């Protein structure tokens, strides 16, 4: 069985019964794409909202290019572009913000970028667990698309 751990600025796609995990997302955003018919899933641990020229070639680092890359990789595994749904988790603000500097709200920017890019592509976001002040560990079960989310004090699934 495919059982894969991704780190910051990485992505992975897998078929059922694969499991994709990522530990300790803070302000980064976890973007989960899933085709419930082909049972093909993908997870990206993206750090920043938008890729721009001169920002290197790591597509998993940016929300927009991570989504595009996952779509291509999932289609190669048999996913149908019209069947894909999305879930989002992460985008926390880890440290309390005293002066509203832009770094501290990068989590919100990542969430907004994912909303916007998925909206443009017409991919529905069926569930979200975003924002707040806690890190999250994610586990996607590609058998049914369930996303398990742990913080230091809570466990949930969406």
């Amino acid at each position, binding site marked *: 069985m495919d059982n894969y751990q*991704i*780190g*910051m*600025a*990485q992505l992975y796609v897998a078929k059922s019964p694969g499991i994709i995990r990522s*530990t*300790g*997302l*803070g*302000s*980064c955003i976890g973007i989960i794409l899933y085709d419930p018919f082909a049972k093909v899933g993908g997870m990206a641990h993206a*750090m*920043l909202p938008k890729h*721009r020229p001169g*920002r*290197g070639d*790591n597509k998993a*680092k940016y929300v927009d290019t991570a989504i595009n890359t996952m779509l291509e990789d999932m289609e190669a595994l048999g996913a149908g572009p019209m069947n894909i749904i999305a879930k989002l988790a992460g985008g*926390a603000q*880890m*440290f*309390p*913000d*005293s002066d509203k500097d832009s*770094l501290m709200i*990068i989590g919100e920017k990542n969430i907004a970028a994912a909303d916007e890019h998925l909206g443009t592509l017409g991919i529905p976001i069926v569930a979200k667990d975003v924002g707040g*002040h*806690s*890190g*999250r*560990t994610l586990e996607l079960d590609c058998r049914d698309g369930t996303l398990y989310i742990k*913080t*230091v*004090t809570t466990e949930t699934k969406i």
Partner: protein
Amino acid sequence: MEKLNFNEQDLLTEVGTIGTGHAATAMADILGQKITITVPNVELVSFNRVAEYIGASGSNLACIYFDVLGDLPGTVLVMFTENSARRLLNTFMPDEPLIFLELSQLQQSALMEMGNILSGAYLTALADFSNQRMSLSVPRLAVDMAEAMLSVPLIKLGSETDRALLIQARFFEESSNRGYIVFFPNQGATTRLLEIFGVGSDG
């Protein structure tokens, strides 16, 4: 920058050693006990391997975050494992009940103050040694997953690079009580540090 050469590594280790030496002294003064601190590790590490490299992956830590301002900007994190945070807090307030994930205001203040003293000593030494102006922001504290907190300085570097330069040392090495002090210079600050000490990238 893809890799540090021998001279760069050597120089940055020396810079880190001066800083951590001062930090250890400051901490020993407060605690009234000898503090052991490791020689810093200096390495360019891929983002996805930073927590593992520091030796903190999968653990919950108390982390005090500082922006470094001035000529060599970056981020400093001072991090304590649960055991080392307990050890510190028990020294200051032995009677206060302690739940690591729900620290009281007073306990949070004490840890931030400890972070202030450690990072202040560290950076003052570094600023004096390099003859650069450096100052620290106010401390910010979180108790959470190591990876989640480490993501904050990495995101700051993220638009420029896929690797972070880490100058990190561990203290309380003698037991499971572990603390970390990590300086993440910005890309520009790293170049400047190397220039100040005359270590070229091809040296």
